[in-house]
């Protein structure tokens, strides 16, 4: 009798729970982490990481969300293979020792119906620091090509690489790094 009650309760709550917080899986071909850094004061160099993965949850009604993104540090690409090799070395991203860069957040700050900023923790070279992403664009809807429901967002942040122990070639190669994330995530 008790078991039946429990089952009825569970079945009654389940649909609401599922709607309460939808879970999403990052779509790697449409998700990139970009960065820019000053080079010797002459110009601003751009680079990106080609391989990302992760999960997110979003509850539009409660205006809450969470995200966990893992970026493969060895997938760095700046359009010049020799520089990429150097960036993978322990002088910079140390891809052999720290193959993943992660960003984790459980705090989405909403402004109206869309998240305006995401407060989380960035782990780079084994060092974890708080980082706040400013959300620059956000949209949820059905993808006209895949017919899947998905959300997409753009976000930026500013960090100092020396805070994470990446000190090689300072100050010639800039300390201030601008991060730009473009991501799409499919509803599970």
């Amino acid at each position: 009798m008790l078991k039946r009650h429990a089952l009825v309760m569970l079945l009654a709550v389940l649909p609401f729970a599922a709607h309460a917080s939808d879970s999403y899986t990052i779509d790697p071909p449409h998700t990139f982490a970009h960065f820019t850094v000053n080079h010797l004061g002459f110009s601003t160099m751009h680079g990106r990481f080609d391989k990302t993965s992760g999960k997110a949850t979003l509850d539009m009604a409660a205006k809450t969300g969470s995200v966990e993104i893992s970026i493969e540090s060895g997938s760095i690409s700046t359009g010049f293979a020799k520089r990429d090799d150097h960036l993978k070395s322990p002088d910079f991203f140390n891809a052999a020792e720290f193959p993943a860069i992660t960003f984790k957040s459980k705090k989405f700050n909403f402004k109206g119906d869309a998240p305006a900023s995401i407060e989380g923790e960035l782990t780079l070279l084994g060092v974890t620091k708080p980082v706040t992403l400013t959300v620059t664009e956000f949209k949820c809807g059905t993808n006209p090509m895949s017919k899947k429901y998905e959300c997409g967002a753009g976000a930026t942040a500013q960090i100092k690489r020396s805070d994470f122990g990446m000190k090689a070639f300072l100050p010639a190669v800039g300390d201030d790094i601008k991060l730009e994330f473009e991501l799409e995530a499919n509803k599970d």
Partner: protein
Amino acid sequence: MQELLHHPAVQGGLVPFGVALLAAVLLQPLRLSGLAVILGFAATVYLDNGFSLDFSSLKTFQKIVWLGSVAALAAIPLALFNAAWIRPLLTAAGGASALWVAERILQQHQLAQMFLWGAGIALYAGWLVFWMDKLGEQPVRAGSAGLALGLGTGLAVLFGGYASLGLYGVALGAAAGAYVLIQMITNSRLPCGYTFTLPLALLAGLAGSYAVLSVKLPWYALLPLAAIPLAAKIIPVSEKVALWLQSTLLSAATLACAAGAVFLTWRVAGAPPF
């Protein structure tokens, strides 16, 4: 002045050379001239990175510097002993140090690869410690081997694409160069022993093995580097000729081995990216 001190040629060449030159002369009455190498190396570390050490998140790079410093400190009391067990113990400790330094990278490999790489780097570091220790009573041969081992490791690591560690290797070579130069000029042998051979061999061994695992330094480039202390030991140069001539001949031979390592790395990695 700050700009000058940040120049790689000053940090990796001039400063360690000058500090080692001064230290070798000043420490000669205490029979601790061998410490000149680690002091020259430490000057480069200080200029490049400072001495901050966070044990809660010890990075591989910091582990190497820390182990080199510990080896230099341990070498001072070790000189008081003359026991047969010291050399095998130091060899084993050198191998174990290489495993500890590369621990995080090794853990990311499959089991078979992990054992293969682990055995390889432990063997390399242990080998250098063993053979450099055999040169401990021959300051001219040890100095020439140190010069070539430092420069060879540093330049090979630089060509492999790891600037910071390459700079430290070159600094070792520059400091050992100062040690060689004093003997050439004064025609008298400096005190050597563990204080010279142990930190130098360990730092070169750890730098080489870590670079093989993390950048484009091919494993076989370590073979000519491993041959350096062996070459310095077995090349027949008469002890009776002037020290400048002994040093020149031995340095030429050992530097040829170092050049071999740099060439092999260049064939794989090309010119440095910086």
